[in-house]
């Protein structure tokens, strides 16, 4: 589903990733971990093409990213649900609309939007915040809106970047449980985190990064 072959990414003054090879099977759930600045976010950005790889090949959902036409990028992204590390909520629309936008972009029928959004918000325990604006939410609440937006469209792939950095352990466990349920229904999930609790005893594969280098793989 997601395949990295000798992928490198350089920023002006910095190697963010060096010759990374890695693959996630269709329907698999995998983790990326590593210290701060080791390239986790960069790896995810390469998958949804927010950045372009400088070397190597990336294949996502049978699409060869380096050969993707510009007009196919939205097609790629519509298959992916993303929880951004910095949430990226839209400040000028309320929580409901922030989640609904993922459906609207995918052209989901207006009649289905409401129930799907409410279901997603229920999963992250935010039904009572439907009408709030992002600026009036606590950090953890914002993060959960971001999660709801990523899962509401039932994408083929979910990329989650530190999705539990701002929530308590119980909520965190609930979120992981939700991800596992979604994964069980066939969705491929790649989750970047430094919270070992998330993958400990999960039985899932964990890719370790260190300063942009591959630093081993383990089963959590």
């Amino acid at each position, binding site marked *: 589903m997601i395949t990295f072959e000798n992928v490198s990414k350089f920023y002006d003054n910095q190697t963010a990733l060096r010759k990374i090879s890695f693959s996630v099977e269709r329907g698999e759930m995998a983790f990326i971990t590593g210290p701060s600045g080791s390239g986790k976010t960069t790896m995810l950005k390469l998958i949804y093409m927010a950045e372009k790889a400088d070397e190597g090949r990336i294949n996502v959902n049978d699409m060869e990213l380096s050969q993707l036409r510009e007009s196919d990028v939205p097609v790629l992204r519509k298959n992916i649900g993303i929880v951004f590390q910095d949430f*990226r909520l839209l400040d000028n629309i309320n929580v409901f609309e922030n989640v609904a936008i993922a459906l609207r972009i995918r052209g989901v029928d207006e009649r289905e939007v409401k129930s799907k959004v409410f279901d997603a918000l229920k999963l992250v325990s935010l039904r009572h915040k439907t009408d709030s604006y992002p600026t009036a939410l606590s950090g953890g609440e914002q993060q959960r809106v971001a999660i709801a937006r990523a899962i509401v469209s039932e994408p083929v792939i979910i990329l989650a970047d530190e999705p539990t950095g701002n929530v308590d352990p119980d909520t965190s466990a609930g979120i992981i449980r939700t991800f596992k349920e979604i994964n069980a229904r066939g969705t491929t999930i790649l989750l970047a985190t430094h919270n070992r609790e998330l993958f400990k005893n999960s039985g899932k594969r964990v890719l370790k990064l260190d300063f942009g280098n591959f630093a081993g793989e383990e089963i959590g």
Partner: protein
Amino acid sequence: MSMSYSFRLAFQSIIRDKWVNLLAVLTIAAGLLFTAVTVLTVFNVNLITREIPKKFSVNVYLKENLQKQEIDNITATIKKEPSVENIKFIPKEDAWKELKSSLKNTEYILEGLNENPLPDTLEIKLKKDSINPDAVKKISTMLKQIKGVSEIEYGEKFLSSIYSLSLGIKTIGLTLIIIMSAGTLFVCYSTVKILFYRKNREIETYKFLGATKWFIRFPFLIEGATIGLCGGFLGLLGLLILYYFVLLKVGSTFPIFSSFVFPLNMSYLLPATGFVLGVIGAVIAIGRIRY
């Protein structure tokens, strides 16, 4: 992508930033009002000065005692000239009466004269584009050579001054219109662009969520178009108020302004320009969307 959704998004955004959007609308209104006022002023001044050349005529004094037939021949010859608009025959009796009436209080100047000393005259009005010093000189040389013509008279000074005046007003008017319009359009465009800048992050988020270019652009275009259109209508409203209250009032005191022309059928131009500017401003502000 549903249209109604784009509209809702656009109007939500407009309402959320209502004050600064209002400011942009007012700015565009002011800008378009400027252009309109300038264009109308120049247009009207030009209209008034265009009337001046109509007063210009070339007088052809005829030799004495010509036959009707001869006069008709001369008239026909002159009429052939392409630059001649029309010809009026003024018998010397009429000219005499006119001279007397024009001297009015001082007509005793003419008391000593027993006999009308004035000649028959052909008053020639020239076509508008021939009213310039060179053309008139050429024509008058030509006229002088016609048999039966004794003298040619035209206000040389008057001619050259109206000529330079009307050309000057045209030049300065056009310069003003160009400066003002260009400046105003730039100001309007710039306002929309400044208003939209820093939406980058918002646009980036849409992109990352998988939105197509038009899904992203549409709400912004609607927003820009609405702001531009509102600005245009407000500018038009301002112009109409200005026209009715100020100019009609001024016109009642100074009749010269009561003939001020306001081409109502062109008034759609203001909202239209506002609309186009809003859309273009937004398009350019959003920039080329690359995934």
